[in-house]
């Protein structure tokens, strides 16, 4: 069975050549550690797919099925980062080759493909997964076969593994600062929590409730969950109207998202009448919802496409140059983009592709070139990052209206259990 080896096809290479000047800014800020002299025997003592000129990595996302909607951005961002790294001469003098696998939105398939990448292809790192379910499915495989996964999605936390670097926020990083902002600027005391019914929204709302009740001394006037894929939110909207919360805290995901926001608008719930803060709508989702249906509502993320800094401008330009002017970049897409860069930094710091050495070298790594500004890997393999509040605009972008300090990741928060 011959895997597709995506070796930066020549036309892509031509495009990226023309981008070289543009990319140079990104490259220049990263120390060039092209070290073609190291022998493979030195940098790879564990039989990974590393030769003198090539290192193979895996990419494991859903290209088909219901999750392809969300995971496409991550696939693109990881590709972009790897192309850029290859343009710069690769890692330890070796070009990166991608072996792409389709998880097909099916968790057992993720586990199967993860095993294939680690056992058969012996890839040096895997960039992939999106949903918690797919991560949970592959985690035992990564731990058993000792692989390294760069996981991009903001998620519920409650997990920490030597074999995973979490480049998205764990729950507390996304929630607490956002609630503080609501309480401070909107004077919110009464909160209504809604979510899709699975682990991430439930865990996030659990943390939110503790914070609202214990720290903000506010009140949760309602908490509702809907099956994934639910499309009727009329009753919920009426309940919200009845309870009149100061703020609605929304973690509705997937296909339900579109229904939820459209029905809010149709029920006359607009941003001048009701404050809503969501942690589950990135620019990617707005494509499906329609910017005009979200105007004035808030999202709490670590990254927005409109972020005004040089790193981000270069990143957005490169992304659009590669994937077209209409491409949008959401929080997870940016987090996925960090994965290859963080891996590169870790490999170079460790001077080796060996998983154990990378795992040990990762904490403390900084990425000053990150589009979100600056990130640093924590001992617990999550990233220090900031939280930002964006206000949705009609064109589908967010206007950043608040930015927190760097927040320490705390995946297993005490006092919030």
């Amino acid at each position, binding site marked *: 069975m*011959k895997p597709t080896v995506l070796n930066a096809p020549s036309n892509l290479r031509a495009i990226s050549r023309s981008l070289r000047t543009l990319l140079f800014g990104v490259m220049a800020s990263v120390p060039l550690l092209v070290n073609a002299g190291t022998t493979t025997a030195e940098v790879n003592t564990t039989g990974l797919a590393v030769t003198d000129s090539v290192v193979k990595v895996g990419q494991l996302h859903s290209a088909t099925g219901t999750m392809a909607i969300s995971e496409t951005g991550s696939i693109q961002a990881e590709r972009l980062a790897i192309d850029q790294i290859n343009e710069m001469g690769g890692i330890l003098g070796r070009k990166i080759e991608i072996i792409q696998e389709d998880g097909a939105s099916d968790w*057992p398939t993720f586990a199967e493909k993860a095993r*294939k990448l680690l056992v*058969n292809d012996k890839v040096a790192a895997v960039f992939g997964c999106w949903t918690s*379910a797919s991560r949970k*499915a592959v985690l035992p495989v990564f731990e058993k076969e000792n692989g390294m996964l760069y996981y991009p999605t903001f998620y519920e936390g409650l997990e920490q593994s030597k074999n995973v670097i979490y480049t998205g926020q764990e729950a507390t990083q996304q929630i607490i600062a956002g609630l503080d902002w609501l309480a401070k600027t909107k004077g919110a005391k009464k909160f209504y929590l809604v979510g899709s*019914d*699975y*682990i991430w929204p439930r865990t996030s709302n659990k943390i939110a409730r503790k914070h609202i009740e214990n720290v903000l001394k506010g009140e949760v006037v309602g908490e509702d969950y809907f099956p994934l894929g639910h499309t009727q939110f009329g009753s919920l909207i009426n309940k919200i109207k009845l309870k009149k919360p100061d703020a609605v805290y929304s973690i509705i995901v997937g296909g339900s998202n579109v229904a939820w926001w459209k029905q809010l608008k149709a029920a006359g719930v607009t941003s001048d009448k009701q404050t809503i803060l969501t942690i589950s709508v990135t620019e990617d989702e707005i494509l499906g919802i329609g910017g005009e249906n979200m105007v004035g509502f808030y999202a709490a993320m670590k990254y927005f496409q409109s972020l005004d800094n040089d790193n981000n401008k270069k990143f957005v330009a490169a992304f659009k140059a590669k994937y077209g002017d209409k491409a949008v970049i959401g929080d997870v897409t940016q987090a996925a983009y960090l994965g290859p860069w963080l891996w590169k930094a870790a490999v170079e710091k460790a001077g080796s592709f060996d998983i154990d050495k990378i795992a040990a070298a990762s904490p403390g790594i900084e990425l000053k070139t990150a589009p979100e500004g600056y990130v640093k890997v924590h001992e617990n393999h999550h990233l220090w990052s900031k939280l930002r509040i964006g206000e949705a605009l009609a064109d589908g972008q967010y206007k950043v209206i608040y930015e927190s300090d760097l927040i320490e990741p705390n995946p297993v928060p005490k006092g919030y259990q």
Partner: protein
Amino acid sequence: MNIITPSTASAAGAPAWRAWIPLAALALFILAVLPLCLDLFRLNLVGKYLTYAFVAIGLVLCWGYGGILSLGQGVFFGLGGYAMAMFLKLEASDPESTKIQSTPGIPDFMDWNQITALPALWEPFHSLAFTLLAIVLVPGLMAFVIGVAMFKRRVGGVYFAIMTQAFAAMLSILIIGQQGYTGGVNGITDLKTLNGWDIRTDHAKYVLYFLNAGLLLASVALGQVLLKTKFGKLLLALRDKEERVRFSGYDVAAFKVFIFTLAAVLSAVGGAMFTLQVGFMSPSFVGIVPSIEMVIFTAVGGRLSLVGAVYGSLAVNFGKSYFSESFPQLWLFLMGGLFIAVVMLFPNGLAGLADSVRGAWQKWQARKAGQMTARGAPRTPAPPEDEPAAPTALRVKGGAA
């Protein structure tokens, strides 16, 4: 239009041992050829696909022979798998390894869902004996109840198919919704040991593969014996002439309930073996999509061939795995096309093709010998028609009084 003729009936008169040749060949293939040719990773995949074959042979019995198309076999596969997963999860959740939880000693996902004591439903799954019984009895009982409710009221055909589909949808929504008790959409993951025996080692993988293959071969053999009995003949008879069987003094519903329940139990065994080999169980097996896919394994292998169903499961899954690796954008087209082609052009699947080839060969041999008897003539496989007598209320077409 002709009604499909199963090879068992057409082989009447041939020595009895001849009927066992395909099974012997299959045994050779999965017990010797595959383990010798494949590395452990691929063999483990085969093992996983063979667990679907349990469902497929159940479908041969209940759909191919009994004419009962269930689009909810994933329910039974899932129930078997979940029962096994519950036992393994409890074993993996001993207080020592879960000490960082708020409530140590319960599965991690319960802790995340603020459950502070093991639910009563889970308690008996501390016992392996109970678990093994539950794997068989829970899905069996459920199929029995559904079967009695449906078949006694003469619900059949397409209506039964979408009813089972509705059940599959409901159960998967229930499992996903009750995440505190079921692990929700993540399923039950991170299973480690069975009575202290680590199921993740290479050695364990080999052992489980052969256990699985052995059970599967035994199930196929059981199915073959079953089809040889009067029960088997009645099954075929009631698929084609349900009224005639009923008016020959048989309680048709009881036969349907039995075969549906048997298919469910087989699926559940497959599910349990899946959990053991893959190391987790997820609600994605319970829904509509996997249930229909399993019907396709059967259709591809040949809906009237138990052995064919096993090959079908292997072929479709390897195809899926290969195409999704090599042409990720194309494989849905290929899968969809395969479905349509099998249904429209090769309703007897691989087994039917094999029969045609054998028939053509015999014909050629016969012609060479200058004689051709009527009995030796190959039967052109005609697509089977669904039971001509759909239930009263649901009957839509044709049929004179």
